[in-house]
């Protein structure tokens, strides 16, 4: 003569309140779904963006280092010794070295008809012909300098320079007026993530710079790739290698650090937004608890009837707990879908790969159910503690 309730019956009884009061169920689940959507969306978007940054870092490599002149101790600009690139190249783990030098007082114009003094912030740089390999940079159009073209008035434009000059796809040889000479554009670079100042440069060969632009051959930036496993060791000796007499006047940097810092910075924003999502979740929990308490008050006679039909206190508690879990579970499911949708839309609009961490999905569902359990516990206990006669006395 046992009174038992099978699982499907618990589920049916627990979903009765939801089925008969759909709008209220919907409204009370909204809070949880917003919270979960925020959490899943933030985790998804930041994971997608981090994945993109990491992929970028991966593609660019973290073993690029730059060496340039720093500050003289008493103020004023330092100079890199002429021997610096050669010295750096002789450091064991250094794979490639490319030197560049800004050609002073050389301005870039589309034609010789422009009387301007300023070149729109575009600098002319002399560069070694292996610069592309060292940077891992690629061309949009044309070719880079080679030992032959480096001798002649030929120029490769950075991405922003080409845009500024209005040169998109030459298709035929175009000449620009550079430092009082006509130079032929032989190629246009894609944006260089690890050396953004090249985007605003016009690049010529060292011999050409010396021959046509009176360049003194001074190095302003030396790019080098080191063995990926010994980057920090190489970084430590670079200053002394480049300028043994005044190592303090050498500035060494690792451009990938900027990207790595951006990856880390995103983590900080993520926790802030997850905190906001947690607040929404808390509000959702209060909404569900309120709905459930109201349901217990309104459905006293149902509780009394069920007790008369043979429901134990546990059965009544289980029914209301199930209802609360269903509410929060449905809210959580909607939230996970919404958050995933937001992530997908945002990532696709930025041309990123969509990454939704499994942890966000399971974690989102689990925290929704936890919220439901916590919010439903007290109302369920109240319902169970109601004596049958108290419950039946209403109406």
């Amino acid at each position, binding site marked *: *003569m*046992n*009174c*038992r*309730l*099978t699982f*499907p*019956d618990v589920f049916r*009884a627990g979903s*009765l*309140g939801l*089925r*008969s009061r759909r709008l209220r169920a919907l409204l009370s689940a909204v809070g949880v779904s917003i919270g979960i959507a925020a959490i899943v969306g933030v985790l998804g978007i930041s994971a997608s963006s981090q994945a993109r940054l990491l992929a970028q870092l991966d593609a660019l490599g973290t073993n690029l280092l730059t060496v340039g002149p720093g500050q003289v101790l008493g103020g004023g600009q330092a100079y890199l010794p002429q021997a610096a690139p050669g010295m750096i190249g002789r450091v064991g783990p250094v794979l490639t070295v490319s030197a560049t030098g800004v050609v002073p007082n050389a301005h870039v114009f589309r034609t010789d008809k422009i009387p301007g003094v300023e070149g729109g912030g575009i600098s002319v740089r002399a560069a070694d012909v292996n610069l592309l390999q060292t940077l891992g940079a690629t061309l949009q159009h044309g070719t880079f300098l080679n030992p032959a073209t480096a001798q002649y008035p030929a120029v490769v434009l950075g991405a922003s320079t080409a845009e500024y000059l209005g040169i998109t796809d030459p298709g035929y040889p175009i000449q620009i007026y550079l430092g009082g000479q006509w130079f032929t554009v032989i190629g246009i670079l894609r944006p260089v993530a690890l050396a953004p100042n090249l985007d605003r440069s016009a690049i010529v060969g060292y011999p050409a710079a010396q021959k046509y632009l009176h360049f003194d051959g001074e190095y302003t930036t030396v790019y080098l790739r080191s063995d990926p496993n010994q980057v920090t060791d190489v970084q430590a000796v670079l200053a002394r290698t480049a300028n043994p007499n005044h190592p303090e006047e050498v500035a060494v940097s690792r451009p990938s650090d900027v990207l790595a810092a951006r990856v880390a910075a995103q983590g900080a924003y993520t926790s802030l937004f997850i905190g906001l999502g947690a607040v929404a979740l808390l509000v959702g929990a209060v909404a569900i608890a309120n709905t459930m308490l109201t349901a217990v008050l309104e459905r006293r*006679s*149902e509780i*009394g*009837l*069920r*007790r*008369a*039909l*043979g*429901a*134990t*206190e*546990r*059965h009544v508690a289980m029914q209301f707990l199930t209802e609360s879990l269903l509410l929060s579970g449905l809210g959580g499911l909607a939230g996970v879908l919404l958050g995933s949708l937001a992530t997908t839309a945002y990532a696709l609009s930025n041309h990123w790969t969509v990454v939704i961490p499994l942890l966000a999905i399971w974690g989102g569902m689990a925290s929704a159910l936890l919220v439901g359990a916590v919010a439903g516990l007290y109302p369920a206990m109240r319902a169970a503690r109601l*004596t*049958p*006669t108290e419950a*039946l006395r209403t*109406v």
Partner: protein
Amino acid sequence: MSPPVLELQEVIKRYRGEPPVEALRGVSLTIREGELVAIVGQSGSGKTTLVHVMGTLERPTEGVVRVAGQDVSQMNDRQLSGLRAWRLGFVFQQFFLLDGLSVIENVANGLLYRAVGQAERRRLAVRALERVGLGHRLGHQPNKLSGGERQRVAIARAVVGEPAVVLADEPTGNLDSASGASIMELLRDLNDEGRTIVIITHNHEIAASIPRSVELRDGLIVRDAAVSGLSSLSRGSALGGGQ
């Protein structure tokens, strides 16, 4: 003489409060299998408390209650609930049908806490509904039915599990006289088929149409029609009814 299905011995029910209220002041009553009994009394006479105590919805402060031969005083919540699920059927004045469920689901709920399979529950519910004359209303929502029809659904729910006794608390209280009469007729028919039914009512007319009527006043049984000539009862005198 058929075996007793409900036995109350010296049942006292006291409610805490200032001053304490004694709703039942020593009620002894035996109801046997196959009986149709009316418990009559004015409001405040303790008849609702009596039906709650008989239905194990409430424990007596003192005294013994036996349902189908089992003493309920030492039972825990689980055992009492089991007793209600298997041995007792309830009919309420307010029907207490669940609005989200169809008529057939409401009746099938009478077997819910016995863990009977859903298909079997529905099969028995259809049979019970056909018995009370609602075979044509199976899929309706209860709030689309008339009061009399709703009470028939509630009666079907009470008898679907063939309990040892059906306790009907003012079953005609919310109905007009025509529907009330037809509900009474249904209850008498169900009794004719062998079911034990206790009807609680304040209506003497209804009580008069029933073979045995027990009158309650101020928490005491003052008249049990089956025992002729009884006009008053003192505490401690055992009362046995029979046919």
